[in-house]
């Protein structure tokens, strides 16, 4: 349909820069919007069914490994924001869940973003999206295990331990399917209203890169031959404060121009997972040494994933 609109109605040559760019823009945004809305509805349904109190009860007294796995899963399906991550962190730690398990959640949550996974699946293929989720989960698991070897409690703000948590008295309420569907619809709508402008901006940037940068532009500097490319890309992503939905289309365009996949992934992940506002938010519950340790481990994790991807998808 877009081919027809751009080529036949407006009369642009699809191979020309402007025609190709506009075609790419229209086709991409519509596809992304449909995918995001549909899949965010399903994830919203899963989230509405998740009972955090029960998850906490389950975690109490389980072994370290089961705890780490569940923490990673929780982190993957939960968006990373001050409204969900910080109360959950306090609720878990004050509720007696080992700090390393709670930190694993805190690492997995920004490292594997569900919106980014959907966008990567659309733009890079679903095998790459699966590799992204698995690699991110694995890194979070390893970081959590390493953290469990040390006593990090002294670097958590006293406020967290001083909090006396009440049992949730509304906890007996089992959400009905109706309520879950309502919540999921609300979630998909929320995501859409916050994310659409990022998608438009990202795809537009991607279209510009697709249309104007010469073929193999990045192959020389950021191709598979440069061993430092992943490291530089990861650090370059930190000051970028962009939404996952905005950065993936740009990443795809960089990839099409010869940047190797691992380097592109490292840039994407660090742009999403690491940002200054996020550090300020975490500072409320973590003291500076642990905050630095947290950021450092996520950076190391992303660099490892970058090299791994370069090795797997040359």
């Amino acid at each position, binding site marked *: 349909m877009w081919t027809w609109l751009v080529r036949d109605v407006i009369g642009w040559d699809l191979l020309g820069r402007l025609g190709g760019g506009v075609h790419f823009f229209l086709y991409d945004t519509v596809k992304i919007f449909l995918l995001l809305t549909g899949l965010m509805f399903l994830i919203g349904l899963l989230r*509405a069914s998740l009972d*955090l*109190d029960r998850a*906490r009860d389950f975690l109490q007294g389980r072994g370290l490994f089961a705890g780490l796995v569940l923490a990673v899963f929780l982190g993957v399906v939960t968006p990373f*924001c*001050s*409204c*969900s991550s*910080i*109360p*959950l962190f*306090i*609720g*878990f730690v*004050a509720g007696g869940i080992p700090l390393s398990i709670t930190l694993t959640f805190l690492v997995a949550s920004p490292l594997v973003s569900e919106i980014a996974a959907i966008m990567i699946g659309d733009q890079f293929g679903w095998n790459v999206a699966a590799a992204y989720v698995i690699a991110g989960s694995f890194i979070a698991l390893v970081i959590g295990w390493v953290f469990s070897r040390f006593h990090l409690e002294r670097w958590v703000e006293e*406020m*967290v331990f*001083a*909090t*006396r*948590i*009440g*049992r*949730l*008295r*509304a*906890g007996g309420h089992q*959400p009905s399917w109706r*309520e879950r569907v*309502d*919540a999921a619809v*609300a979630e998909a709508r*929320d995501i859409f209203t*916050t994310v659409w402008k990022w998608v438009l901006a990202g795809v537009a940037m991607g279209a510009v890169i697709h249309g104007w940068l010469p073929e193999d532009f990045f192959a020389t500097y950021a191709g598979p031959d440069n061993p430092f490319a992943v490291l530089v890309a990861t650090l370059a992503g930190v000051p970028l404060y962009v939404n996952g939905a905005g950065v993936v289309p740009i990443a795809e365009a960089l990839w099409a121009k010869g940047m190797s996949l691992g380097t592109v992934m490292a840039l994407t992940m660090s742009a999403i997972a690491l940002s200054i506002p996020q550090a300020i938010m975490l500072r*409320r*519950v973590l003291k500076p040494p642990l905050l630095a340790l947290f950021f450092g481990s996520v950076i190391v994790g992303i660099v490892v994933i970058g090299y791994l991807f370069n090795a797997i998808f040359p």
Partner: protein
Amino acid sequence: MIIKILGPGCANCHNLEKNTRAALADSGIEATLEQVTDYGEIAGYGVMKTPGLVVDEEVVVSGRVPKPAEIAELLAARA
């Protein structure tokens, strides 16, 4: 009746506040509305998923935004 909206100020907390105000206006129940934005205090209520709705120190809703009609019912049951 004292109603507290628990939430650090995200979109859902504002939606819950809006729906609660609508419920109060529709049902004619008199209540004072307070915002609780402090993380420690929120966790103190046992709420791990914001937003939360607290009526006279009892958590009645957490982790979702109920419609005004449902809030009105919850409030009427405690009036």
